[in-house]
């Protein structure tokens, strides 16, 4: 077998030397077809945006920066920031409780998470809003003892307070699981090494474990923030004039439903884009030492055409609320 091959090679004239051989890449006619289809659909989409007068782009422009829309925008931002901060703080507390060796403490955290993740956020918001039906009077004092301050629930539970309670307490349950996953992702050898160096528990958590846990915590927290920004639109059921409810108020008067919904959507899009960019830089900050090569700058990545988009880590977020 091998002998015949050798013989043939010897007799046949060499086709051409390897250096002059041309490489022909495999053809992908399917890709060209797909590109054509997508381009046609894209052209149709742009065409309808420009030619369908019912989009009423002039109305969009008219209301985009109007005072009531900007007011709603401000409320949406305030709600997002306050709920996320409160949710994050309470989430860290719940995560630490969940990992506590004390069974009572850890089951309370487990139960909290089960309760707040197990019921729809909309129901929770309505529940807080209607708290006065359950407790007409709220008071602060010694448990089972005298109270120092008390007042009517209706006065205390404004739409803002109900919205914040609902959003933050719900968010805390999700953040608790994210933080717990982050803390548990850090190898126990890390805290052992730190202990062996004589570091105390708080020092180890702050300087050794949390910074490493952040690599796992930041991406889903970014998703949570983006999700929260949009979830705040639920508070329109509490008649709280956030971004969505503000445009609803306008179009219920002017009947320009579509252009005003576009105004709200554009603002949501802008804000989520800003948040996504912020998330990118946060992740870079916490990925120090994560790879063997030094991290490249944003510009280097753009230049390399490798700007990565951050996908939702499985199970970390994106669950139906």
């Amino acid at each position: 077998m091998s002998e015949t091959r050798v013989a043939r090679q010897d007799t046949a004239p060499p086709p051409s030397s390897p250096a002059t051989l041309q490489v022909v890449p495999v053809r992908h006619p399917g890709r060209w077809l797909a590109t054509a289809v997508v381009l046609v659909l894209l052209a149709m989409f742009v065409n309808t945006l420009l030619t369908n007068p019912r989009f009423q782009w002039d109305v969009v422009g008219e209301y985009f920066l109007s005072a009531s829309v900007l007011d709603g925008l401000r409320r949406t931002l305030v709600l997002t920031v306050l709920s996320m901060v409160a949710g994050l703080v309470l989430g860290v507390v719940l995560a630490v409780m969940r990992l506590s060796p004390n069974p009572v403490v850890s089951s309370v955290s487990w139960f909290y998470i089960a309760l707040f993740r197990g019921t729809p956020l909309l129901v929770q918001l309505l529940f807080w809003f209607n708290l006065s039906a359950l407790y007409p009077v709220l008071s602060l004092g010694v448990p089972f003892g005298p109270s120092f301050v008390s007042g009517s629930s209706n006065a205390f539970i404004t739409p803002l307070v109900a919205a914040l309670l609902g959003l933050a307490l719900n968010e805390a349950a999700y953040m608790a699981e994210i933080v717990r996953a982050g803390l548990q992702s850090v190898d126990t050898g890390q805290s052992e090494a730190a202990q062996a160096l004589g570091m105390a528990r708080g020092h180890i958590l702050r300087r050794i474990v949390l910074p490493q846990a952040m690599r796992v915590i930041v991406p889903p927290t970014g998703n949570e923030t983006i999700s929260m920004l949009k979830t705040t639109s639920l508070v329109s059921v509490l008649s709280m004039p956030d971004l969505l409810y503000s445009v609803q108020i306008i179009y219920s008067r002017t009947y320009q439903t579509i252009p005003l919904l576009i105004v709200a959507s554009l603002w949501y899009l802008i804000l989520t884009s800003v948040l996504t960019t912020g998330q990118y830089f946060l992740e870079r900050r916490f990925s120090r030492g994560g790879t063997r090569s030094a991290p490249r700058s944003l510009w280097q990545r753009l230049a390399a055409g490798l700007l990565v988009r951050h996908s939702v880590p499985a199970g970390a977020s994106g669950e139906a609320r």
Partner: protein
Amino acid sequence: MTGRAAVQGPAEVLVCADGVRKSFGLLEVLKGITLDVRRSEVMCLLGPSGSGKSTFLRCINHLEKIDAGSITVGGELVGYRQAKGKLYELKDHEVARRRRDIGMVFQQFNLFPHMTVRENLVEAPLRVLGEPRERAGAHAEQLLERVGLRDKIDAYPRQLSGGQQQRVAIARALAMRPTLMLFDEPTSALDPELVGEVLDVMRDLAEDGMTMVVVTHEVGFAREVADSVVFMDDGVVVEAGPPEQVLTAPRNDRTRSFLAKVL
């Protein structure tokens, strides 16, 4: 066999273990370990896996709690306080204070991956001992010089080879100026060609008079560097003595059959 490492010389006892017992659940891994380590002594713990040697090492700096017996380092109990015939477990920060003088090197290096080599070395001296920054930094450079990694001071651990990481880990432990160094299978996670560089650093430390307790499978290192070798099996000290005795002319059958397998 008394189980006490017989070492010549009048040097003072630094580590004194007396009847140390430890169980994980129903499994008793240490069944009464009694041994002394003298100042400047290098003791190698040998034995088959599961014999309890790593657990014993971790008991010395209280990474594992002991169930009975006692361990003192420099005359002080490590994780406990003795009063009225009982041992009271110490609080976290008190244990931390006593651990400062005991350096430990792990099989998996356990460098802090989010910190550079320099930050790994100065973190504990700065924040635990409260050393001034310049002093801790200068000491770090000096230690890295000693382990031959002065040029890696700004690298992150993941940019280093296993052998380099372990040498940094040794330097990090030394940065606390410990009186005792514990090594938990320091070369077991290394590629064979990287073992030598780590053993060289340890040999250098031993020559400098550091007291060392080394859990290892490197019988050659034990023979060459150790002052005493302790052979453990099934949670007890089977044989202890100078390396030429334990490694060359073991008196116990279990030691003999173990050495026959690893040599």
